[in-house]
Structures are given as C-alpha cells and as structure tokens.
C-alpha cells in the first residue's frame, strides 16, 4: 500500500528528515497499523456527514480584535534559552558578513514585531 515514492512524498510533507533506513522501518509500521485500521472501510457511510467537531453550541467565532502584548521585547526575549542584547539568537540561514565580532555561526532576530529587522 505504501511504496517508496509515497514515503518520500510523506517525508517531504512532514519535514521529518527521514533517513532511508527509517523510511524502510516506518513503511513496515504504517502498513501494519493501516492493516488494523482497514475495518473502517467496510462501514457503510453513504450519506453520512463527516463529523469534524462536537461543539455544544454554534461555536461563535472570537471577535477579530488585536489583543495588545506590551513590552514584547522585555517580556519575551529573556525567556529564551539563547538571547543576547535584547535579541533572540538563532542559527544563521542567509549568506553575508558576520555581524559584529561574533565568530559563531549565528545571527540575531528581532523580538518586537513593530521594529525593523536588523
């Protein structure tokens, strides 16, 4: 049921970084699980509306109002395990000169959505 091509597609969609060895074991596991799940295919669901949720009432959508989150930099950045000078430190993912004297393979991202990126 699950061939190599499908597994590669699933690996790409799920961003799981599956090695070839893992793909082989996952293929076996999924096939075994789906064999157990096959029974639902025998259920007559002709005309049955799929049930996506079981809400008690109509589920009035929340008002689309911006909720302020003040002092985002002061409140969020210090919670991060890796921060410097009021910025999150994340791996470098763009080409370019190293910022400042930092020799490690990192760059900093601004925490405050209101400011310009640096």
């Amino acid at each position, binding site marked *: 049921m*699950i061939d190599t091509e499908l597994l590669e597609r699933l690996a790409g969609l799920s961003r799981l*970084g599956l090695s070839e060895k893992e793909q082989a074991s996952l293929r076996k596991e999924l096939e075994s699980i789906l064999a157990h799940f096959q*029974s639902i295919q025998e259920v007559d*669901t002709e005309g049955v509306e*799929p049930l*996506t949720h079981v809400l008690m*009432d109509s589920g009035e959508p929340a008002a689309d109002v911006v909720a302020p989150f003040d002092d985002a930099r002061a*409140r969020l950045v210090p919670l991060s*395990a890796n921060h410097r000078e009021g910025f999150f430190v994340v791996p*470098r993912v763009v080409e370019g000169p190293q910022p400042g004297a930092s020799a490690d393979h990192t760059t900093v991202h601004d925490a405050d959505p209101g400011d310009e990126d640096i």
Partner: protein
Amino acid sequence: MLSATSIAARVRSGEFDPQDVTEEAIARLQERDLEVHAYLDPDIERARQLADRVAETLRRGDDPGRLAGVPISLKDNMAVHGATLTAGSKILEGYRAPYDSFVAQRLIAEGAVLLGRTNLDEFAMGASTENSAYGPTRNPWDTDRVPGGSSGGSAAAVAAGIVPVALGSETGGSIRQPAALCGITGFKPTFGSVSRRGLVAFGSSLDVIGPLAAHAQDAALVYDVIAGHDPADATTWTGTRPSATTEKADLEGLRIGIPEEFLDEAVDSRVLESVSTAIKTLEEGGAITKVIPKGALPSMHHSIPVYYLVACSEASSNLARFDGMHFGPTSESKDTLDLLARYCATRADLFGPEVRRRIALGTFALSAGYADAWYKKSLSVRRLILNEFTALFGDYDLLAGPTSPFGAFKIGERSQDAYSMYLCDLLTAPACLAGLPSVSVPCGLARKGTYKGLPVGLSLTGPAGQDHRVLAAARAFEAIRGTPERSPIHGDDA
C-alpha cells in the same frame, strides 16, 4: 493525605497555615518522587511564593478562594508564566512559557499553590508515560509497572500522596486511563467545558483538560474552578456550567446502562470481576442498572482506527509549528544555510519515535489521494459513533463499564508494538470522539491473575453538558464504597 476540600476549608478558617501545608507537600515530593519520577520540574520556589501570597491574603482578612493553600500539580503541557514547558519533548527543552494558561490563572485566582509540572508521554502521545523524552514515570502501586498515560505523572503524583489533586489532559483516554491504573479519580469534561488556552495542542477536536484526584469530591471542586467559557478559546461553549460540587450526590433512580460493547473480550476477566462488584454497589445506592445487549453501539468497534486517524491528522498539522525556530532549541547536527534542511534535522533529532510515527500517519491520512479514504471516512464513522451514543442517552442517564481493558502493565511490556499500546484506548476513545463527559472512579483491586492487587477503574459516562451529574454520581459511588485503597508509597499518612 487530606482532601483538597478539607485543606482549603482549614486554611480559610485559619486552622492551617498555607506555608506549612506547602512545605509538607514539598517534603513529600522530594522524598517520594525519587521512586516514581512523577515530576519534570518541581518548581518549588513558585509554590513557596504562591503560599506566601495566600498567607498575605489571610493576614489582610480577605478570602484566598475555594482552593486556598491546596497544592496542585499541572501536567507539563500547560503553560505557567516563566516556567519551562516541555510537553515531554526534547524539541521544547528549555522553552519557557510567556503567559499563564487559562487553567493556571483560574487555579491561582482561587488560592491554589501550583507545585511543579508532571511527566507525560511526549506531546501526550501514549498510554504509559514511557514515551517521555525524560524517562518513564513509575506506578506507586508497583514501581516496575507503568502509571498509564499520557497524564501518568499527574496520576502518580496523586496516587503517591504528594498532592491531593493534579491536572491532566485527555485526547483519547489520557486522564481516565492513568487514573484507573493508579487507583484514583480522573475526570474528562465535555469537549469545550474547559478552555485550552495555554495547552500544547495535540488533537484540537478532542483535547480536554480535567482533574485527577484522590477523592471524587476534589475532582468536582477543581472542575468547578476550571470550567467556563473563555473568549480566547472559541471552542469553549457559552453559558453557565452547573456546580459539580453542590449537585446532589444521589444514585437513587438513576438509569445506568452497561453496553455489552464495553465488556469486550479483550477486557481482562479480573477487571470485569471488579467492575461487576462496582455495578452491584451502584444498585445498592438505588441506581437501576441494565446490561444493554450487543448492537446498541455497533460503530464503537471502529473507535481505535477512527480515533488514531483523526487525532494523528490533527497532530500532524498542530506539530508543524515545532521547527526549531519558533519554539525551543534547534538541532546542531546540520551546519547549513538551508532553512528547510535545518527544520528537518531538528524534527529528526528532537522528536521521539512515537511522535514521528503519528505525524507520518496523520500526514498520510491527510495527503492528496488518501484523504477521502482515510481522514474523511474516519470522520463519517465518528458521526455514527456520536449518533449511537445520543440514541442510548434517550433511555439511560449514564453508561458504565471498565475504564481500561487491563490493569497496570509492566514497563516495556507494550512499548515494542505501537498497535498493542493503541489498544489501551479501546474503552476511553469512544467518549472522546463523541465529546462526552466521563469519569473513572477506583472500584477496588484485582483479586487474582496478572493484575492481582492492582487498582481497577469504573467508568461512568454521561450526555454532553452533564458534567455535574457525572461527577455527582462519582461522589455518590465513593460515598457508598468508602475511601479508595491507597498505594504502598502513599501509606496511611493523614
């Protein structure tokens, strides 16, 4: 240990000092958690600060609230401001929550003393707490056995007598199943009774937060505190929830059905024996019980596939946010400028095998060419399951049966075969799919066989929105049966 209800009353009256109560709980945690590993972070400083706050409120002559000075632990998938929030995963190691979850806010507002966050299967995916990236929790009844899962840390903390009550979350059985295996009460509210703001999402159409407690009365008290509409969680239903604490605990005249589908051949015979005794206890209390012949819940047979297809599909979408950039650490195994390769490396290195398996299964069920045959098909069968329950509640007030097909199994016994672990949800997944309120109450110890001397749970399930009646029945059952047996670690301490 004393019940939460009793602790709160004595703290409010001035008989107990909240700081003393907290120090005693901390001492129990430090001693007993060495054996059970229920906690990922005891967060003792926060407990002391909250106890100080309650003491200060009392000094001012104000009322600290309905949970004054009660030590309560949270499963580590609920946000507590400034505290770590791992969800049992390496992918969130070191992550700290920027705000309080709705449930944490409610508990603190009523004077509760949050004491630590408890272990769980990674992202609440599992039935034994063996899938935690931080090592398994052990059952206080027998430390070679699992406490159940995924809220196994919360269940073990209560069963070990460290705290009188803890919060868990349930998607397919994760509150009730560990409650049953640890000999305590666990309540899964109606879907949408309790806000999930600040809960790490797993299956959004199923996830519910609820209490695990040594006494049914405490489960009712904590439910009353955390239930309610939250404008920030659009899935919480509007309107008031009747109090589960003040609802009359009376079984007289209650029509309780026992569907034969709940007495599946997969259920251990000694578990069935304990449940049969429990049903006689319900009758002694005045309930009218009746075994409903097979055929009333024909689609329940498909609950395991339907549950796993729905939950994993939703999980594959919910867990897409964990890429090593937005939350938590980034894998250092790939030194590359390719962002996609970094995402993949992080998810490969920091998600555990069960989480990866479920993401893959969900991705499959939602993928083009397969979604109709698997995802949509499972949603249609889900509606049939709901319809069958709805029809039964025309004739019965509650449905009863065993919570888990078996007692606490040995660590490692089921972890090698994914499907064998999935079967733990056989009797709990149906109520989750239908969104129904359901409680597991301890109903004695298995007398013989594989699970001899280990706790068995009786499940009581009601119609949507009848949370207060389900909990009142649990209170009535406990009142007749007496205080549940205590684990050896808990001992007889007051």
